[in-house]
């Protein structure tokens, strides 16, 4: 662990807070630094609770712990009310309650352990279990001795957030589906193993070695064991075939079902009459292989899609309603669902606006980055409009609700997203249609073969038809694509790129253009210090140290940017005053200094504003430092390009790059030039971005869109393949065909893997088709016995799967998502 990173969250600790550590943590008799009071408090709680071994067992640093505002603690208490608990708490006999919660901030298995311990430490918590995959917790407690809010607060005390989780119907449905798929797989596997036991003696013995009565007994045993496979495990294929037939198509499931039933019925006939071959082993093995492939594929997709949480989380559950404004200013907690147009609300700093509203009183800044793509905080004055879901940054505001529910901007964006999702290109469906024709032709050939042999030599007709169906059963064909996709999906998940849609890899490999969003995708989306303009006789470093000293106590993003990478000046500070929306003022070494927006400083400094300041970094945020008699410096703060963006762009080959951003032209052009991106467009609204991408598509280009934020969601959905950058809004992740949770270079790897996947899928398809084309005539002329056919089918499928596994194996073992410290 390096000395400069926070013991708890691993973020860099400002130099000013080291030597001696400003927020020390005592762990195993050693003092470690931490980055802020929040992390310090959390770490101390964890250590004092005897849970210190969390720090050895975790694989990743925790999230930065921000101290919990009192408002949130108050809101937690609201959840104690029975009427609010109705949706997520189950009341059991006596005072026992059970709540479904979802935990935020879980990054590794040690987090699960930590949270479970912490919950179980509470008196009268009866049971607490957390699912590692879904991050959902189930807590049972005795309500007479403990309130739900105390449980929520206990989780918050160790740096995580627990939200009530409304167990939705959809989710229960998925759960049941998953259990069924697992049981089907077990049934097929178990039957396959046991039937193989009965089939093996027949394979290895010479004909006639086993007397007829033993043979018959083993055949009956096989029949009984195969029955559940055909009747139960094959249900997915039956329903799949039925679904396709209802739409007037012959899907991939049809030959599977026909092959299974033909082989099964033929074997049953042979068992009843005691004449002919049985193929029970082929049937159960075939079904097991297919189900196994499907299960793995489904599991990978579910995992990748788990990131998708709904948009609704942006809107808080409660608002502070001021009932008698302006005469009485006491605010009352009210559920947002009960708000009405014209209600007056109080929004405190750090909260999101519960609805679209207009400012009645107060002045502050709002962070609308998620909704409009504007990375800088937007100033809000009396009469200005606020967007529901945006974050109120620095000052309390009194607002009046102007739009609610479906009428809000956020809901409008969601509708746009829905429409765009409906216009999805249907590449996968095309592949299905081609396969359907192939399958239909196969069935005709098998039927023709049967009729011919029935006329020519009736004894061989059934075995030959079964051999044809089994050998040309599109097992390898239907495994060819999913096996490769599953292997590639797993490899990319380890690299930090989650695939959430089936067509994503295919489309990625065939793309010709890539469109980047700027804020939060190529850049950090948070202000960094760009330049210092000194007015006094001091070096920029000394001036920054002075600014850092003034901002030492602030958690404002700008303050953090100023503190970053510099040691605060070692001077006396007192009479510190924070002017929200303006800046800070303090007495440093006996001299009054102000740091803040240029007009805030101008109002204080007797000397007129230095002329150099006019137009300096006009596109960025500028803060000035001055004493009453002298201008000292100006600092430009703005968004900065991520270092891995350059590395990623260097690795992208064969793609035309575009940059689209909702920001002003200045910063966008700067970023485009810095990264060497040819085409860029600034001040683009969500609708403009959508039009741009659609225009590219109209020219026959196939477009990758890389972006974050809800405003990107419609564009993400319209692009041929979309990649949502993790850490952005959850909704964007839901819209993305892929979610990038690692750094940007993982995307470059993803592109390479996608192209390799396409190559391997083609190889697999060529092999599977070639095999079928060679084997089909052989089976038709009767040179292939059914057992040879099933062997051929199995080895052909195995070859296809092994070829696909190469995709997963090529990964370097040491590479992991998220850098371990």
């Amino acid at each position: 662990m390096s000395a400069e990173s926070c013991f708890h969250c691993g973020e860099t600790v400002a130099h000013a807070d080291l030597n001696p550590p400003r927020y020390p943590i005592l762990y195993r008799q050693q003092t470690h630094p931490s980055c802020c009071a929040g992390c310090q408090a959390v770490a101390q709680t964890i250590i004092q609770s005897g849970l210190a071994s969390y720090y050895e067992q975790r694989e990743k640093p925790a999230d930065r712990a921000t101290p919990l505002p009192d408002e949130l603690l108050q809101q937690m208490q609201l959840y104690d009310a029975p009427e609010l608990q109705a949706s997520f708490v189950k009341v059991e006999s006596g005072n026992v309650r059970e709540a479904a919660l979802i935990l935020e901030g879980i990054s590794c298995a040690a987090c699960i352990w930590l949270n479970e311990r912490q919950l179980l430490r509470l008196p009268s918590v009866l049971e607490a279990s957390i699912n590692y995959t879904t991050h959902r917790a189930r807590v049972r407690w005795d309500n007479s001795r403990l309130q739900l809010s105390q449980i929520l607060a206990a989780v918050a005390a160790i740096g995580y957030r627990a939200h009530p989780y409304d167990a939705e119907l959809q989710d229960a449905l998925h759960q049941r589906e998953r259990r069924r798929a697992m049981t089907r797989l077990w049934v097929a596997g178990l039957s396959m193993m046991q039937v193989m036991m009965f089939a093996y003696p027949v394979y290895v013995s010479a004909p006639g070695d086993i007397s007829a009565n033993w043979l018959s007994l083993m055949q009956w045993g096989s029949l009984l064991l195969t029955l559940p496979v055909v009747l139960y495990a094959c249900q997915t294929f039956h329903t799949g075939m039925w679904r396709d037939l209802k739409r007037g198509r012959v899907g991939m499931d049809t030959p599977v079902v026909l092959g299974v039933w033909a082989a099964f019925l033929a074997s049953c006939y042979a068992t009843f009459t005691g004449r002919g071959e049985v193929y029970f082993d082929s049937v159960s093995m075939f079904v097991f292989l297919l189900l196994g492939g499907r299960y793995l594929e489904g599991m990978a997709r579910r995992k990748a899609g788990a990131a998708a949480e709904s948009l609704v989380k942006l809107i808080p559950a409660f608002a502070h309603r001021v009932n008698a404004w302006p005469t009485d200013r006491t605010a009352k907690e009210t559920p947002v669902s009960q708000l009405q147009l014209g209600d007056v609300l109080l929004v405190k700093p750090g909260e999101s606006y519960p609805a679209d509203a207009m400012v009645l009183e107060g002045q502050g800044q709002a962070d609308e980055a998620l909704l409009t793509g504007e990375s800088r905080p937007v100033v809000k004055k009396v009469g200005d409009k606020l967007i529901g879901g945006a974050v109120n940054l620095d000052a309390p505001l009194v607002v009046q609700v102007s739009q609610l529910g479906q009428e809000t901007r956020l809901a409008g964006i969601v509708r746009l997203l829905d429409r765009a999702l409906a216009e999805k290109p249907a590449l996968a469906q095309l592949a299905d249609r081609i396969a359907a024709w192939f399958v239909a032709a196969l069935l005709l050939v098998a039927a023709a073969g049967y009729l011919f042999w029935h006329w020519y030599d009736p004894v061989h007709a059934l075995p030959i038809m079964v051999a044809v169906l089994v050998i040309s059963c599109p097992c390898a064909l239907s495994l060819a694509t999913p096996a490769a996709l599953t292997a590639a999906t797993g490899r990319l998940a380890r690299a930090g790129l989650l695939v959430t849609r089936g067509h994503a890899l295919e489309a990625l490999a065939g793309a010709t253009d890539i469109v980047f969003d700027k804020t939060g995708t190529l850049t950090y989306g948070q202000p960094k210090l760009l330049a210092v303009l000194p007015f006094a006789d001091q070096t920029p470093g000394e001036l920054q140290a002075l600014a850092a000293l003034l901002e030492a106590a602030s958690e404002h993003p700008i303050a953090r940017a100023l503190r970053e990478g510099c040691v605060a000046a070692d001077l006396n500070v007192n009479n510190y005053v924070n002017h929200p929306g303006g800046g800070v003022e303090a007495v440093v070494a006996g001299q009054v200094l102000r740091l803040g927006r240029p007009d805030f400083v101008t109002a204080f400094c007797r000397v007129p504003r230095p002329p150099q300041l006019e137009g300096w970094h006009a596109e960025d945020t500028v803060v000035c430092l001055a004493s009453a008699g002298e201008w000292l410096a100006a600092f430009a703060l703005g968004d900065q390009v991520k270092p891995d963006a350059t590395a990623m762009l260097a690795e992208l080959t064969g793609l035309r790059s575009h940059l689209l951003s909702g920001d002003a032209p200045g910063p966008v052009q700067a970023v485009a030039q810095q990264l060497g991106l040819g085409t860029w467009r600034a001040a683009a609204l969500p609708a403009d971005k959508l039009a741009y991408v659609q225009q590219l598509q109209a020219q026959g280009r196939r477009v990758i869109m890389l972006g974050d934020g809800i405003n990107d969601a419609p564009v993400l959905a319209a692009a041929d393949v979309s990649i949502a950058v993790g850490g952005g809004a959850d909704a964007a992740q839901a819209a993305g065909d892929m979610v990038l949770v690692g750094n940007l270079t993982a995307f470059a790897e993803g592109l390479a893997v996608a192209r390799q996947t396409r190559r391997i899928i083609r190889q697999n398809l060529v092999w599977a088709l070639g095999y079928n084309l060679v084997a089909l005539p052989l089976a038709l002329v009767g040179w292939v016995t059914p057992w040879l056919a099933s062997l051929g089918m199995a080895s052909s499928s195995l070859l296809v799967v092994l070829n696909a596994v190469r995709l997963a194996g090529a990964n370097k073992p040491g590479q992991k998502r998220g850098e371990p410290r």
Partner: protein
Amino acid sequence: MESLYLLIPLSVLIAAIIGGLFWWAGRSGQFDDLEGPGHRILQDDDKPVGDDE
């Protein structure tokens, strides 16, 4: 050889019982979280509580 008359039906029966067991295990949620228990067993509290040792 006559024992096969017993052994083969027995193997079918055992397979059916195992199948039933898996069905029950799946139904009661044994396979809902396939990753967590593997981690949990390593993190069990068999060490004395406390940060100093």
